[in-house]
């Protein structure tokens, strides 16, 4: 009996999708539960937190919930939102380039995706730096603890995406010459993951910065 995983680059006759894609969607489902648990914590902590006094700060009232915009940088978060949405577009365009048999276009768009990902991390590092400069650490208040946990976990997902995309752009792209359908499937799966990371940020942005 062969130990090879079948239906990686062709749809399974029962499900109608490749095993690779179904597996990736199941992974995304588990990720939804991971971030869902943290969002649930956010709802619980926020809905039970005392109201911030009119001239109160997180330093004097660590349990009270501040308005995100009062201590976080909305312009930096807005820039990061635009960067991440742009990277989602370049990611899907890299897949579309392969669909048109345009390998150079794939590399160009994937290169932009990776560059934008580093841009996101750079802006995030500036933001963290500003917080630390003002002694705003996770231990200071409930809001900052959640802020650093959620954005830190999201940042780790960005780093994971960069590693996968960089692999597909260079060493992994050798597969395009031998098994183009399978390689395209891999790029599509990497894209699904990347769009999910973008999707999480779409919710983090208003929840943490604007409310």
């Amino acid at each position, binding site marked *: 009996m062969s130990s090879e995983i079948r239906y990686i680059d062709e749809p399974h006759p029962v*499900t*109608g*999708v490749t095993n690779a*894609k*179904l597996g990736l*969607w*199941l992974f995304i*489902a588990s990720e*939804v*539960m991971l971030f*869902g*648990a943290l*969002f*649930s914590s956010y*709802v*619980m*902590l926020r*809905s*039970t*937190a*005392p109201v911030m006094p009119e001239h109160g700060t997180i330093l004097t009232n660590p*349990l009270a919930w501040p308005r995100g*915009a009062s201590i976080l940088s*909305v312009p930096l978060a*807005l820039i990061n*939102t*635009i960067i991440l*949405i*742009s990277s*989602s*577009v370049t*990611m*899907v*365009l890299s897949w*579309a380039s*392969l*669909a*048109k*048999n345009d390998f150079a276009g794939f590399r160009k768009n994937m290169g932009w995706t990776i560059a934008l990902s580093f841009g996101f991390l750079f802006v995030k590092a500036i933001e963290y730096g500003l917080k630390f400069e003002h002694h705003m650490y996770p231990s200071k208040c409930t809001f900052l603890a959640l802020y650093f946990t959620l954005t830190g976990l999201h940042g780790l997902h960005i780093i994971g995406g960069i590693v996968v995309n960089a692999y597909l752009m260079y060493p992994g792209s050798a597969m*395009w010459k031998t098994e*183009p*359908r*399978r*390689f*395209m499937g891999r790029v*599509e799966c990497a*894209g*699904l993951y990347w*769009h*999910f990371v*973008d*999707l999480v940020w*779409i*919710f983090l*942005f*208003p*929840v943490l*910065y*604007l*409310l």
Partner: protein
Amino acid sequence: MAGSSMTPAEVDHHVAVYLRVFAALLVLTVFTVVVGEFHLPVITAVVVALVIASFKGSLVAYFFMHLKWEKMIIFATLALTVCFFLFLLFIPYLTSGTTPTVIYGS
């Protein structure tokens, strides 16, 4: 086509859709920030922000993640996930009045 069963015209159509979705996401992002400047009451602000975020998320999932062209098994997987996610999200409300206020009040 080396790896795809789509014709170049179909791919071009997809790309045009992606670019329109991109424009819509940018507009909605700016709209989210503008609404945040109105300092609405907390409940209203949360509802408005989550409605816009859900719409943006749907655009990403429907077009960029190809759900528009996806098979039923993927939708079934996601439907099950959404059920569990909503349950998880509402656990705080289902158990309200049990512990958190006591912790903060003590």
